């Protein structure tokens, strides 16, 4: 039996505007998505802001009612059977909110341990272990409001693990974290997964998704564009090679070359940086021919990444 089971899930929001004449508008945040997650899996939801990722997570953690469709966690409906789910799951939202900022990290964890019915005899020891794991043992008794963004996020992670959940939902957990902090978080996620926790993760960080997730769903405007393993998604991408080039002058006509699927360019310190997605060896040769007259400062070619596949899918859906 899948740990998470979602079928034809729909969620609409009604928003009102206008002071005198109230205008109602319906926003279709999630439009009939279906997927399932098996025990022990790390499942990724990728998408732009407003794609429907957070709304999906909110329905899964019993915070929001679906408009229609099936939304089950551990075999129970997330709307109507919340009591059967809540002590076995937990969630972490990215950002600095979701904690009592005038309390210390330890007091926050003690309070949430109480709300998650953590036995009193093991609570304090477990909190010490969590604080050690997120590297906050020496600041455990300091008010959260004095913490940096990264430290606050680490308290959130400890809070999310307070009940040793069977399923952990992470909504952009590395937002605002420095590279070292993000790496620590990825380590914690892997460790929790190794201990048997099933994880559903949303992120904008493609490297993170590629490294952590067994399967990924790419969502846009509330609809799945693709759902598969990262390797299969990359393999399906038209992009075979990505060239990263730094030049002294921007050759404007690269995007028109047949076989070039995407060009991203940026200017800094008089130099032009290009990221060119090529679909064939012929396209690579033509790109090299075009840039030959300019001075090449650096050049790197790599096989297609998840980011290339993601951009292609999302841009393709927009067109």
């Amino acid at each position, binding site marked *: 039996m899948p740990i998470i089971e979602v079928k034809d899930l729909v969620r609409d*929001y009604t928003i009102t505007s206008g002071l005198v004449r109230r205008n109602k508008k319906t926003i279709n945040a999630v439009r009939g998505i279906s997927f399932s997650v098996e025990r022990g899996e790390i499942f990724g939801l990728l998408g732009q802001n407003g794609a429907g990722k957070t709304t999906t997570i*909110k329905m899964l953690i019993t915070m929001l*009612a679906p408009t229609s469709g099936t939304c089950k966690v551990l075999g129970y409906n997330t709307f109507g059977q919340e009591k059967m789910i*809540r002590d076995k799951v937990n969630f972490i939202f990215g950002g600095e909110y979701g904690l009592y900022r*005038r309390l210390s990290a330890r*007091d926050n964890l003690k309070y949430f341990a109480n*709300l*998650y019915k953590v036995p009193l005899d093991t609570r304090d020891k477990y909190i010490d272990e969590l604080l050690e794991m997120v590297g906050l043992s020496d600041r455990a008794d300091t008010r959260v409001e004095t913490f940096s963004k990264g430290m606050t996020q680490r308290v959130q992670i400890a809070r999310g693990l307070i009940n040793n959940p069977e399923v952990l939902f992470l909504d952009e957990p590395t937002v605002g974290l420095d590279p070292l902090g993000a790496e620590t978080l990825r380590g914690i996620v892997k460790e929790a997964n190794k201990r048997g926790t099933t994880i559903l993760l949303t992120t904008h960080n493609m490297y993170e998704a590629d490294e952590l997730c067994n399967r990924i769903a790419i969502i846009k405007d509330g609809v799945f564009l693709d759902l598969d393993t990262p390797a299969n998604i990359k393999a399906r991408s038209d992009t075979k090679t990505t060239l990263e080039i730094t030049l002294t002058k921007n050759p404007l006509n690269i995007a028109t070359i047949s076989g070039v699927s995407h060009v991203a360019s940026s200017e800094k310190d008089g130099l032009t940086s290009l990221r060119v997605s090529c679909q064939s060896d012929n396209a690579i040769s033509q790109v090299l021919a075009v840039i030959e007259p300019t001075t090449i400062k650096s050049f790197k070619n790599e096989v297609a990444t998840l980011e290339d596949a993601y951009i292609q899918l999302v841009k393709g859906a927009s067109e």
Partner: protein
Amino acid sequence: MNSKSVVITSMILQMKQTFARNMFKYCMFIAPILSTIILGEMYRYAPQENFIAFVVLGSGLWNLWGAIAFSSAGDINRERYSNTLSMIFSAPVDFRLIWLGKIFGNTILSICSFFISVIFAMVLYRIPVQVYSWGLLTLAFALTIVSFIVISIFIAYLLTLSRRTTLFMNCLEFPFILICGFAFPVELLPNPIMYLSFIFPPTWAVKLLRSSIVADAPDYMHILVWLLATTIGFILLSSLLYKTIFRQVKIAGTLDMA
């Protein structure tokens, strides 16, 4: 983990959080003094019986109401903005126990503001302590606290339904002070508003407190029955509405600001 533990830890957390807020310190220490002066000047030439009933008790109740109900409503807003409302709502323990603990926390702190008002009024206007029955006054005060807690819970539940909490909580504070007779007898209100005021337990709580300080405690039992009836009525109403409200909260998605 038992219910008592959830209530107590929520209460302690609330007191720590609340006392750290400068606005609450103002509500607790400064506002009682200001409201006592306003009422004291209004009733400066009133008979002493009215002065005790409407200045000493009135300012105390004004601040007690402000601190319990207004803070509890404000907490819904604060928790919604800090994204902790959705956290505690989605926790395995009953949300009602968590919120009861928070209101208890506010109540304990708010009782201080009541006594600051009372003591300040008595010292500033040199009012002698004259109470018909300390026993009846103590009972009335305890029931007043209970009635304020009950109505605060009811308001807090309703405020989870909308994100426009700030507007509603500001609309709630003064109308209750006016229609529940904190500052003047409800009998002075137009009839429809007077009858409306009889629905709310604080109206009867105020009457009961006043009855216990004047000679012979007229109508004490009659008022007590009405206070108990309206309080029980609001407890039943809150219990009946709880499931509907929190089902609607999940449908409308009003627990956070996103």
